[in-house]
């Protein structure tokens, strides 16, 4: 009986630990559709061209939501540029340990129209993140930011 209890405990711990094992490729949702690849820099240069149908983007994961894994940022092929991949809480949970890995995300590009107040807050947040001086009164116009709402994501090692 003691052997049975020990064996069950070992099986439980090993099984649960296996979930943390690194995967060579991990899919979320439907997985990414590699046939619709578009460059992040091209998308952000002319976003209106990419709003009508689903697209796939590729990039190294450079930031992940640390609380719920509900968003991640992919590095663009252009310096200082990223695209946020955002899901509803729980639909997909992007692992923090995937930072630096290459991700492919297929979905719909969405435009978020910020009010003047939101634009100020957003730019102040970016300046704080980058440790830069920022004058909130310098913002006089509203802005639009873009993010991808994915139906499928593939993360490769």
């Amino acid at each position, binding site marked *: 009986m003691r052997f049975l209890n020990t064996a069950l405990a070992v099986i439980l711990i090993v099984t649960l630990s296996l979930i*943390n094992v690194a995967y060579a490729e991990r899919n979320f949702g439907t997985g990414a559709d590699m046939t619709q690849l578009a460059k992040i820099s091209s998308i952000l240069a002319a976003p209106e061209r990419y709003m009508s149908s689903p697209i796939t983007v590729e990039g190294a994961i450079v930031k992940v939501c640390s*609380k719920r894994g509900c968003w991640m940022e992919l590095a663009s092929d252009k310096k200082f540029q990223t695209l946020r991949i955002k899901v509803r809480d729980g639909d997909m949970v992007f692992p923090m340990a995937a930072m630096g890995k290459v991700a492919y995300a297929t979905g719909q590009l969405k435009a978020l129209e910020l009010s003047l107040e939101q634009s100020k807050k957003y730019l102040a947040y970016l300046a704080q993140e*980058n440790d*830069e001086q920022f004058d909130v009164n310098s913002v006089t116009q509203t802005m639009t930011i873009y993010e991808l709402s994915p139906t499928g994501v593939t993360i490769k090692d």
Partner: protein
Amino acid sequence: MAIKINWFKLNRSLHRDIGYFCIGLTLIFAISGIALNHVDDWNPNYQVTQQRHFIPDINTKIDNDDFESWLLSELKLDTSVKARFWESPKKYKIFTKHNHTLLIDTQKNNVVIEQVTPRFLLKSFNFLHLNEAKSAWTYFSDLYAAMLIYLALSALFMVKGKNGVKSLRGLLVLAGFCVPAAFVIIYSY
């Protein structure tokens, strides 16, 4: 001859055996429940450690071809680079194959080594609690919920007499409903 079922005994036996089966699941959901309840105060899935280093030559060497290997050796990190990214004109990020993120401030000649390590077991508990597994786990956890409902209802018929639910102890059942109701009344209106 009709078989007479002793419902009281059957209920106790089922409550006992289903209860035994639910111990593991209840611990998993309860432990991860506490962990996830405090997501604003800590990271329930990963342990994130940071070490700050001052390396005086970063801004002069960052454009060199061997910068990355030089930096890794300065930081005594035996690994290789997986990806890199210019976050801003002053901030450069390097990701290593051993899950380090090097946050390089070229203006201040600072490097923060950030390492993300999954929390042993707890990450797996949270994985199940948040139904990241989806598919069959969804149905299995529905079954677990049904078993919990059975355990709750069958508990009402476990004890007869002066300690039964019809005695003063029944007030504890009432309290179990009143406490959440009070929170709803206080916080949701």
